[in-house]
């Protein structure tokens, strides 16, 4: 038993060290695109939270396992059986209850965040999108002007109202993080607030037939004045309707 206490202390120290190492490796290796929207900042904070848990649990299981493999390897010619014990109810209850608390805590965090990043904004700008095999049309409500390019004003909340002419598609700009399927026969919505001016690529990420690979569109996040000029008319906001 005293031996066990010593081993568990060593394992505990190793798990802590490896948790930091694994987190550092994950953080260095996983190359997320830049954060191009307010949603991206929130979502990335949750991803970081997940990475810490992943780093800890990965270290816990692998350190424990590899340590056991060395410590309890059978020596040449040793035909005896291992230690005889059947389990430990207290431990089983602990590793049932603790993970449950952690996942419910994550669920709560995600609930609050999801409600926040999908919240209706009073000054949101509505843009209509229509997906088809294999391209996009964008327009403003009450406007006949159609663009193949998606022009977005910086720092303004956007609501995409989207529908499809044919099959399922999906609206995704990796830098904005959020994505939403586009479904024929109904209108789906996606809210985000672009924060960094520049050029992006909109990609369809729901398999939509032969040229799904090529179903991309150019996205430009521009100053608000330029956005208004592009659409050559008063910008319609949801509240002014």
């Amino acid at each position, binding site marked *: 038993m005293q031996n066990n206490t010593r081993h568990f202390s060593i394992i505990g120290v190793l798990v802590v060290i490896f948790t930091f190492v694994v987190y550092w490796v994950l953080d260095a290796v996983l190359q997320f695109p830049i954060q191009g929207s307010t949603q991206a900042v929130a979502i990335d904070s949750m991803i970081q939270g997940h990475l810490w848990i992943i780093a800890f649990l990965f270290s816990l299981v*692998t350190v424990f396992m590899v340590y056991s493999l060395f410590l309890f390897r059978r020596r040449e010619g040793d035909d005896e059986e291992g230690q005889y014990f059947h389990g430990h109810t207290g431990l089983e209850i602990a590793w049932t209850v603790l993970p449950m608390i952690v996942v419910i805590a994550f669920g709560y965090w995600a609930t609050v965040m999801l409600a926040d990043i999908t919240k209706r904004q009073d000054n949101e700008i509505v843009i209509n999108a229509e997906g088809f095999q294999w391209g996009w049309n964008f327009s403003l409500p009450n406007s006949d002007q159609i663009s193949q390019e998606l022009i977005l004003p910086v720092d303004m909340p956007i609501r995409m109202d989207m529908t499809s002419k044919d099959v399922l598609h999906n609206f995704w700009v990796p830098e904005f993080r959020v*994505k939403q399927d586009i479904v024929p026969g109904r209108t789906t919505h996606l809210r985000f607030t672009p924060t960094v001016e520049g050029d992006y690529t909109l990609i369809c990420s729901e398999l939509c037939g032969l040229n799904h690979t090529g179903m991309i569109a150019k996205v430009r996040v521009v100053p608000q004045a330029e956005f208004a000029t592009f659409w050559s008319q008063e910008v319609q906001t949801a509240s002014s309707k």
Partner: protein
Amino acid sequence: MSLFSLGLVRAIVGQVIGTLTGMVTVILFRVLLGLPAWAAEPAWTLGAVFGIIGALWGVGIFNDWAKWMKGEETPMRHGPPEGQPAWTRYFGVDYNHKVIGIQYTVWGIFLLLVGGTIALIFRTELAEAGRQFLSLELYNNFIGMHGFIMIFAILLGVGGMANYLVPLMLGAEDMAFPRLNALGFWFNVPGSILLLSSLFVGGWDSGWTAYPPLSARGPIGYQLFFLGVFAVGLSSIVGSLNLLVTIIRMRPKGMSLFKMPIFCWAVFATSMIQLTATQLIGLCFLMVSTQRALGMGFFDPGLAGSTLMTGLGDPILFQHLFWFYSHPAVYIFILPGLGIISELLPVFSRKPLFGYKWIALSSLAIALVGFIVWGHHMFTSGYGEVLRYAFMYSTLLVAVPTGVKFFSWLGTLWGGKLSFETPMLFVLGAISVFLIGGLSGPILGTVPSDLPLHDTYFVVGHFHATMFGGFVFPFFAALYFWFPKVTGRMYNETLGKIHFALMTPAFWVQTLGQMGVGVMGMRRRVADYDPTLGGGTIEAWHLAITIAGFLIGFGVLLMIWNFFQSAEVGVLAGDNPWRSRSPEWQIPSPIPEHSFATPMMVKGEPYDYGLPEPYVVFASAATAGDD
């Protein structure tokens, strides 16, 4: 011996004749109705249905039942067919569960090779950015084909392990319904032939999920694919029914449920899912099939130009029905594999399984919770907003029973006398890989962090890690572990270890690489990608994934070569080379036609390594003990 004495040949011929009969029937009906004689879609569809029946009729699975209807008795046949060499029994209808188990396993490995080859073809295309040799059409066909061939292969592998091992572990003569068991296997033959042949009538380009409206408008290949899945689904249903009855009714004296070998618990949980969820995938594929062939607009939103114009259908309904099976299906795939891990760890640790009851019940918990989490595949689908929250919580709960298994495995290793033969190596590899798969799950389970990762390669990496950790590695561990029981000879240990050393690091690279490119912004199911992603490093990652894929493929070929060689020239293994307490190791290797000469009785616990009292005793030995 004529070729036609082989059931497999008769099945294929029967399927061709059935298909032609179905086509002629459609032509006759159309002529009667005054329509143009040939219409490809209905002709192929009815042809495929008749083809399944033709194959089963050709192989002779209905013979006994037909005789029963006429009031004739049919004795259970034992041993190979009269006047034929012994190997021919594996190519025809046989009622012995050990033969059927081998049939399942070999057919499963065959499909594993076909599906793997397809994967290597499109991995080669992806090794470099830009499009090289695969047309977009073929690429889209191949991804779905790879997916469903592998699903068939896994179902067959699961069926192989369950059919071979469960009756042995229960000390039973055979399964509860041997003829139904044979039918269960033979459904897979026309089913796989339909799936493979769908490529030659236009294929199907929707990926394995077959979402309408895309799947409702594609080529005729869809119909063959749907009916192939239907046939294999029937196999799942009759097979799981048989296993449930066997486990409930055929346990020997003294074997209460909590004294069963743990693998039986895993099979029990898996069979519960298979018996009750498989209908849903049959249903939703049948609905798309009839929408295509008969104009029933289940999923048709009534778009301009639609020939149906009902406007009452809903594409999202399909996704609910599809995932109601297809999410629990992944637990069908992994639970038996996790059962294999729990089964083998005590043998190679020489100590009791830690927390037997918790592991047994966690399988049931995963199976039950698995039924209420399907909506996490639809977080971005546009279904009701409140569902996103509900499915998020139910999904996260799956982490709990899965965690119980991991920690109990660690408890089993602790204090053992560990030895590292090939099966144990694959078990440890399985734990490491399933850990990667499991830990990459919750990040997809919380909606905000799922949004950037949904439908990207991150999901591909996560999914392959769960499938390799939950099925492929444990399945290979099981093949190596029970090979000496099946053949009586030992496999080549060095080759086995080389296979492990090739496959495990290669798989880590593959799955972590897939997650990495997904994070960079690479979608799933695309034939090409932007080489500037990830600061221009994405191509190197893809090359690494492709090389890793080839190493895994090479490892699998090495294993198959090892098995073929060792079955001939391997050293004789003896009855119990692993010093296991499990019943199947207490009888001769290879196992005789009638597995147990005398009835089995349970005396002790299945995993009490360290205690002198055996798990099971056989009638003669028991009588001797009583004297």
